């Protein structure tokens, strides 16, 4: 049994006792410890990628150790085409997040320790195949994120952090009940209780039961995504969080939501997924347009990026609930892409804030002449974010739209408008921030361009964006087998027509059944 996954999950924890107990550490030493640990974890993650066999559709590198045997609880981790890229993304973005916060001055050791704890919790949620284990990691996210926002954020940080914590905890409370219920079902139907996802897949659940459970799971994940109208915590959390926190929140933590839907909702409740699919796709499209329109009206640049996140995550959800291979693979791509481009955006916005001490777009302007490198990085992120071909976001959004046209043309058409709107608000933001008359001399004081450390952090992200934009098959080859598997599974179930008006899509769209037959 290989131990790649255990290593990648728990390696960041090694840094925490060092950081917390090494009282004499200077700030730079503390930062270095965290960076080294995170970088080492990136290497391990690349090792996981190397050990991952793209031709296999199911879970790989599975590790299972009995944890509480009488309760059927086990330490069970595994990776498949959905999680592999999220793992690499997490390990890739964490060191960058650490670099981005090199200038955090107070309580550096606590800050870095929390960042590493977050990395472990996020990786754990992506890799756990035991539902209770997943829940443990999923809830473990809350505390370090709460502290990162609440201790290190800006003025209204306490409000934002408490809101974040309560929103997400309230959401996941029902997830726990759903998991416990499924556990009883495994005991009843399979003879022995288990939290193992692969065992739970075997359960046969009635249509009504499935729907209740679906809702319990869905709410927990929808809060994390966040799906309109559960998104209100996000702009606050993003705006108040320090740069590092925003990057981790946007690039990594939000992904736990759609990942959970893909992994658990679709897998365990295929019939309920199908019957709720239309309604959720509708919410996703509302989120796409709503997020974009609200982003357009923001004067706070961080809030603008936050609302753009709501819009972009709408694409991810839409892709998942098209139940097509293109849509699903596109959604996974889009998760990675959003992580890169929004991560970079928050990074650049953080640099601006450090230098200008304002997030108000109206107070900036003409910065391209003073800080050309920052402007260039922002522009690249902007172009990626609006889906310029050749950069990463294009691939994901294109696939999602392709998938949604395959299932519902109207929704697809409305979703496309989100792309157009994103071009408006992002380019407009760029124009107002970086172009126009040069800032006056006294305002230019302290406006330095990127320092080498920051360049070192930005370059890999830009490179990754280019690579994924030009050669998306590198990623798609590994994602597609998993997408095919889940799409075939969801489409193979008979939908209960007596229930919600969800079954229409399967009838309207012949492509649906064709795909279901074509896949294994």
């Amino acid at each position: 049994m290989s131990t790649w996954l255990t290593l990648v999950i728990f390696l960041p924890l090694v840094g925490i006792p060092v950081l917390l107990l090494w009282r004499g550490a200077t700030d730079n030493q503390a930062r270095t410890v965290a960076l080294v640990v995170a970088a080492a974890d990136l290497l391990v993650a690349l090792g996981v990628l190397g050990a991952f066999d793209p031709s296999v559709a199911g879970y790989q590198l599975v590790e299972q150790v009995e944890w509480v045997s009488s309760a059927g609880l086990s330490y069970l981790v595994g990776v498949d085409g959905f999680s592999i890229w999220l793992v690499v993304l997490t390990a890739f973005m964490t060191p960058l997040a650490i670099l981005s916060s090199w200038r955090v001055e107070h309580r550096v050791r606590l800050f870095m320790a929390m960042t590493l704890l977050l990395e472990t919790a996020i990786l754990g949620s992506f890799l756990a195949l035991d539902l209770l284990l997943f829940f443990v990691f999923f809830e473990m996210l809350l505390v370090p994120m709460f502290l990162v926002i609440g201790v290190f954020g800006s003025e209204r940080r306490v409000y934002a952090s408490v809101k974040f914590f309560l929103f997400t905890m309230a959401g996941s409370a029902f997830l726990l009940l759903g998991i416990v219920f499924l556990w009883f079902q495994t005991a009843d139907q399979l003879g022995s209780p288990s939290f193992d996802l692969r065992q739970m897949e075997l359960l046969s659940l009635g249509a009504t039961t499935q729907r209740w459970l679906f809702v319990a799971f869905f709410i927990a994940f929808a809060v994390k995504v966040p799906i309109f109208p559960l998104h209100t915590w996000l702009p606050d959390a993003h705006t108040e969080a320090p740069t590092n926190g925003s990057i981790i929140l946007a690039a990594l933590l939000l992904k736990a939501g759609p990942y959970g839907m893909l992994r658990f909702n679709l897998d365990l409740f295929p019939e309920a997924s199908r019957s709720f699919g239309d309604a959720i796709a509708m919410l996703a499209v509302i989120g796409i347009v709503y997020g974009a329109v609200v982003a357009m009206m923001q004067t706070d640049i961080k809030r603008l990026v936050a609302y753009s996140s709501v819009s972009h995550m709408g694409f991810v959800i839409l892709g998942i609930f098209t139940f097509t291979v293109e849509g699903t693979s596109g959604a996974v791509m889009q998760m990675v892409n959003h992580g890169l481009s929004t991560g970079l955006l928050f990074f650049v916005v953080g640099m601006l804030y450090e230098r200008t001490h304002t997030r108000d777009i109206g107070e900036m302007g003409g910065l391209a002449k003073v800080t050309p490198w920052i402007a260039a990085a922002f522009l690249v992120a902007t172009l990626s974010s609006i889906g310029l071909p050749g950069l990463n976001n294009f691939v994901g959004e294109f696939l999602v739209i392709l998938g949604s046209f395959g299932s519902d043309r109207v929704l697809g058409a409305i979703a496309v408008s989100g792309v157009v709107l994103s071009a408006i608000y992002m380019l407009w933001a760029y124009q107002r921030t970086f172009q126009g008359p040069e800032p006056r001399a006294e305002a230019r004081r302290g406006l330095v361009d990127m320092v080498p450390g920051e360049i070192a952090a930005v370059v890999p992200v830009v490179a990754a964006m280019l690579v994924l934009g030009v050669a998306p098959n590198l990623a798609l080859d590994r994602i597609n087998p998993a997408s095919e598997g889940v799409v075939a599974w969801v489409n193979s179930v008979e939908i209960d027509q007596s229930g919600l008006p969800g079954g229409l899509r399967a009838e309207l769209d012949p492509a649906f059944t064709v795909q279901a037959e074509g896949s294994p």
Partner: protein
Amino acid sequence: MTPPIDLGPILPELILAGTAIVVLLGGAIARGVTPFAWVLLALAGVAGAAVAAVGLWDWDGGLTVLAGGVATDRFGVATRLIILAVAAIGLLLGHHYFERSGEQRREFAPLLLLATTGMTLFAVSADLIVAFLALEILSLSLYVMTGLSRRLGSVEGAMKYFLLGAFSSAFFLFGIAMAYGASGSTQLDAISGALAGQTGSTALAVTAIGLLAVGFGFKVSAVPFHMWTPDVYQGAPTAVTAFMSAGTKVAAFAAFVRVFNVAFQPLAWDWEPIVWILAALSMIAGSLLAIAQTDIKRMLAYSSISHAGFVFTGLTSAGETGISAALFYLVAYAVTVIGAFGVVMLVSSRGEHRTSLSSYAGLARRNPLAAGLLSLFLLSLAGIPPTVGFVAKVAVFRAAVGAGYWPLVLIGVLASVVAAYFYLRVIVLMFMHEPQEAEAERDDTILPRVVVAVPAALVLVLGVFPGLIVGFLDQAAVLRW
């Protein structure tokens, strides 16, 4: 015929009571001996009792001894061990507390040992009369311990505790009378037999259930019998609060489990709704009232009320699953709450200073260790993984779901979200606010830190490896009669 006298199964209690008397008299006679020596002797007594209790794990004699008065099952062993562990930590905390506050209280250790005797006896009593005796031993000791400090609040708390406690004892006693009327016996197995064979009066038995539930509800501080809890927890010396909040709850719940799952087992249909209501009220009221508190000891008191509700939630499922879940919850709660009050004591530094929530502002700066440990305990109380509180919460929810009590579990889930808010508020204060008070004196002694580190380690270890005790508790969850 005289019944055979087999003292083996009450050896732990005999050791505890014996040590208490030796420490009490010794402290009075040999005044030159340092107080810490007596504490060590008391600790040795507790350890001896623990060894004696472990020796009973494989007891192969009768199911009850001393004329059916004391049970000999593993459930008794497990609850005794939990209580004894609490007592050991309580002894060390209390010694430190009174030493630092300057109020030398030599009667503290003997009183604590006597209270412990009452608690362990309460947990193993197989006869309602023995249960009542045990209840009085532990209650009287605790009344005095609450009033050990000369502060007005301490005395007020003791008085309140005593008056209300006496009242609840009367209910308990009246319940015993009713049970006797219903079945012609005060022995749990005999009551059970009479009720199962329908030779007893069900009406009287149901009355007995109600009255006894009042008595137990008072001791475990379940709503609506919780009124005394905040005042007593706040008024009592913090070390005493730490000991009694953990110990009393374990003992009273253990006795509750035994009485209701043995004596009234045939009437489980009748008492499950009572447990249901107590659980729901305690979780809701405890969580909501805790929000309004401005003193950390009062807040933890309301939290303890809501936790009583969670234990009851587990107990709605009669039988092993429920008992095992409740036992785990009690371990988790005991470990966590004694640690939390231990940290409160550390922060107070001397006596009862700085227990208002506002004095926790910026604690992470002044005293990172205390702030970190308290956060850990609060997260465990809130049931956030990877702490033991999370595992415990899952266990009781699982038991209640298994028994089909969905609405109760929903209430529990919502209550735990509400509860998260007030625990979080303390963490916010400690980590996200600037200190408001000037650097006051700090308690830098090693002993209490080591003592508090033990529960902290347990919170994490049992949270990550609950399997370490689950097997043990599962075996202990079988009541034999």
